[in-house]
C-alpha cells in the first residue's frame, strides 16, 4: 500500500471541505465495533495528519469519547497530530538493523534529506524518522518510505530512493 502522508500545504477552505467529506466517509463505519483505527487512517489519508477537528468529528460521528480517540491517536507513532511533509522516511534503528549498519543508512538519509531526524527538509517535502522495529529483521537494514517497506538497503539505494521522491514532485 502506498500512502502519501499528505500534501505539504493546504488552504483553510480546502481543509474545511476535507473535514466535511471525512464526516461523509465515516458514515459507513457507524455502529461498526472496532472501527476507530480505520477512521483514523481515513482521516490521516485525507489531510496527511489527524487534525484536532478530525478527532472531534470522529468522536461525534462514531460515538467514541474524544479523550479515547485522542489517546489512541497519540499511542500510535504512525498517526500524526500535526501537518507532516509529504514523504516520511523511517529508518529502523533496532538491534537487527543496527548490526547490519542502520547507523550508516540513517546518516545517509539525513544527508540526502538535509535535515535532522524529526524535522522537515528545507523544501518541506521530506522528513527522516528513526524508528523502532519495523518487523523486517530478515531484511536488515530496513526502512520505510511512507508505508512501503524496503530492505535490505544500501547507502546508495537510500540516495536513489530519496532523489526519486524529490523528482516525482518536480
Amino acid at each position, binding site marked *: 500500500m502506498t500512502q502519501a502522508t499528505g500534501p505539504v500545504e493546504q488552504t483553510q477552505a480546502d481543509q474545511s471541505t476535507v473535514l466535511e467529506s471525512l464526516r461523509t466517509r465515516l458514515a459507513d463505519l457507524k455502529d461498526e465495533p472496532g472501527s476507530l483505527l480505520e477512521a483514523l487512517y481515513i482521516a490521516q489519508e485525507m489531510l496527511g495528519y489527524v487534525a484536532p477537528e478530525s478527532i472531534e468529528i470522529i468522536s461525534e460521528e462514531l460515538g467514541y*469519547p*474524544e*479523550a479515547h*480517540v485522542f489517546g489512541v491517536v*497519540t499511542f500510535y507513532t504512525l498517526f500524526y497530530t500535526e501537518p507532516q511533509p509529504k514523504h516520511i522516511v523511517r529508518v529502523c534503528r533496532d538491534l537487527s538493523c543496527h548490526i547490519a549498519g542502520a547507523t550508516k543508512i540513517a546518516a545517509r538519509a539525513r544527508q540526502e534529506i538535509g535535515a535532522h531526524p524529526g524535522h522537515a527538509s528545507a523544501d518541506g517535502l521530506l522528513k527522516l524518522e528513526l524508528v523502532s522495529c519495523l518487523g523486517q529483521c530478515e531484511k536488515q537494514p530496513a526502512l520505510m518510505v511512507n508505508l512501503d517497506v524496503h530492505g535490505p538497503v544500501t547507502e546508495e539505494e537510500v540516495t536513489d530512493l530519496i532523489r526519486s521522491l524529490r523528482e516525482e514532485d518536480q
Partner: protein
Amino acid sequence: MCVVEIQPGPPRPSASCTTLVAPGMDVRTDTEAIVGIRRKTIEMLLQHHPLDCPYCDQSGTCELQDETFDLNIWKSPFETVSKAYPEENLNEVVMINHNRCILCYRCVRVCDEQMGVHALDVSDRGGRSFIVTAQHKFMDCERCGMCIEVCPVGAVLSRPFKHVARAWQTVQADSTCPHCSVGCKIQVESRKGEVLRVRVGEPVEPNRGIVCVKGFFGWSFVNDDERITSPMIRRAGELVEVGWREAIEFVSDRLTAVAEMEGPETIGAVGSGRCTNEDNYALQRLMRSVVGTNNVYLGPNGFAATHQVISSTLGSEAVFHSQDELLESDVVLVIGADINGTHNVLAAHLKAAARKGGPKLIAATRIGSALDVFAHKSVRVRPGAESKLLAAISGEEIADPESSVGVSGDDIAAIGDALENAEKSAIVWDTGLWTAGRVADIAGAACNVALSTGKTKLFPLPEKGNLAGAVEVGMDPAALPGPAAIDDTAARARLGEFWGALPPTEPGTGLDEFLYGGRMKALYVMGEDIIATAKDPAAAKDAMDAASLVIVQDIFMNSTASIADVVLPGATFAEKSGHFINFEGRACPVTKSNPTLGDSREDWEIPARIAAQMGADFGYREASELWSEINEVAKPAELSGSMTAVSVNGTVPPPGGDYPFALVTETNLYTAGSSARHGPVLADLYPAQVEINEADAENLAIEDGQTVEVTSAGGAVTASAKLSQFVPAGVVYLADSLPEVPARELGRSAPDATPVSLRKVED
C-alpha cells in the same frame, strides 16, 4: 505490586489481578522473591516520583508512601530523574500533577468504566505517557471527583481541597449523602468542627465505591455563613435572637394556647424529605401524641402519591426493590426525567451494567442525556405525555402517537415488545416535580404496564434524599408510622405503648385544605419552604399571617422563615445522627461528625424539647433511641393491592399558540434544593441559566449567553441562554431550585410541562 507465586503454576511470578482463582491453588504473597520484585517496582517508581511529600495533599493517605514505608526503602538505587511539569488545572475542581503520576490508569478507568464519562485518557506510550483530557482541552465532565478519589498518589488533586489540611489532621465519619435518594455512603472528613472534604471510603451498597459531584463537592452548605445559628422570636416585626429556654417556652405556651382555644385540628406540621427519619418521627409524635392532631404533612412532592398508588394497586411489597434487582433486569425503561442528572450514581451503575451486556436500557426521557450513549433505544417523550406513553406501551391505542406523545408508533411497539418479552424488566422514574395529578397518573400507568407484563418491577425514585423515610415514619395526615392506616388497631396499640397517648382517630385534613381552608391557626414547618413551594404563595402567606403562630425550623432563612413568629436552627446531615431511607427502602445511617453550628440543634431534639415543656417527656437521649422506637412501631401495613388497572387521566396538552414551548424543570447534576446553592462549587458549576435547543435558538436569533425571557400564562423569568444539544426542539429547560430563576413563577399549579414562550431581551 500484584505479583504472587502460584503453585502449581508457571515457574515465575504471576499477576494476581489477572489470574482466576482455581481449586487447590497455593498462593504465596510474601516470599522473599515476591517482596524483592515489589521492592524493585517501588524503587523504579521512585526513580521519577518526586519526594515532595511535605508539599503534597496526598501525604498520609498515599499508597506509594505506605508501600515505600512498608518495604523499608530508603531511596531508589537508580539514578533519579526528577520531572518538573507545572501543576495543571483540568477544570474547576480537578487539577493534575504529572510529576507524581505513576500511570496506574485508575482515574482513566473509573471515569470510563464506572462513571461512563471517559473524560480522561492516556496520551503517547511508555515513558512518555501522560494522563490527559481530550486534546488537552478543559475537562467538561460531570465533575464527580472520582479521578481524585481513586488516585493512589497526589497526581489527580481536588482544587477545593488543595492545601486545606493534612490527611492526619482530619477525622473521618461514615455517613450518607443527603442529596438524592440513592443514599450513597460517604466519608465526611472534618477538622475542628468544619467539614473539609468528602471521600467515598470502602465500596459498599448502594453506591459501590462511587459518588457524583453532589456527593463529592456538595457539602459546603454545612459551613456556610448564612446558616441560622440561634433561635429567634419575632418582636415588633423583627426576628430577635433568643436563648433556647425562651424559644421552647414561647412555642410550647403558644401551641398549648392555640390547642385549647382553637382546637388541636387548627394546628399542623410540615416535615421534610431532607430531614432524617428520626427528625420527622419526633415532629409527628409531638403533633399526634401531645398537640393531638393528625395534621402532619410533607411539602409538595411526588413520592408520597406514587407510594400510595403503587401500594394500593400492586401491594405494599411493590414499592421498593433492591438495586441488584434493577441491574439484573433484562430490560430497563427510564421514563421522564434524566436520571443521570437526578440520581447520578444509580444511572452510572445502570450505564456500566448496560455496557457490560447487562440490561437493555431504554431511555424515554424528556431531554437528551448521557444515558442515550449506553441505551439500546432512546426516544424523547413529549413533556407532559409520560403517562400517555406508558399507557401506549401497555397496549392502549392512541391516535397520532408522534404528536401526542412525541414517540413514533413503531418505537412504542418496540418498547412494548421489549418489556413484554423480557424475563425480568423494570421501569425507573424520578417522582419529582410533576404535579400531584400527573404523579399519580404516571405511577398508575407504570402499574398498568406491570400488570400487563406481569414481570415488570417499578423503581420510583424519590426526588429528595429521605422522602421515602418521611413517608415511612408517617408524615401523612392519613397514615401512621409504617405507613399504616389511622384506624389500624395494631399500629395504634404499638404507638400507645410507646407514647402513652393515642393519635386522634380521625385523619387530618389535606395539606391544601389545611393551608388555604381558613382554619389554620398554628403551623410548624421543618426543613421545607412551604411558601416557595405552595401552588398559591400569596394565599399561603396570607393564611400564615392570619395564623397566631408560625414556627420554622431550618438551616437557612427562606421565604417562610422570613414571616415566621419563631425560627429554630436545625442541623445539617453532618451534625446529626439518624437514618435516611433510600429508593430501595434501605436504611442508610447518617452519622454526626461535627458539633452543631452555633446554637443549632439536631432536628429531632427540638420537637422533643417542646413536648417535654408541654408535659410529655419523650425521654430520648440520643437519635439511636428514636431509631429503635421507629423500628418497633413503624411496621408497614401489608397491603395486597387491587391488582386491577388504574384509570389514567389525560395529559398536559401540547404547547401552542402564544406559548409554543414546553417547559421542563428537572434537578440536574448540580442542583438539589437550597443546599446546593449555598457554599461554593456546586453553585459555581451551574450558573443560573435557561437551556434551549440549538435550532430553536437560531430561529429566534438567540446566541449563547444572551439574556432571554421565558414567559408563561402565569409569569415570566429572565436568565442567560445556554444552547444545548440535549434539549430537544420545542422544549425549554430550567434546572429545578435555582433561586435566581424560579421556575415555579411560570406555573404555580403545574410547574412542569408548562407551555411557555421564549424571546431575546435586548440589552
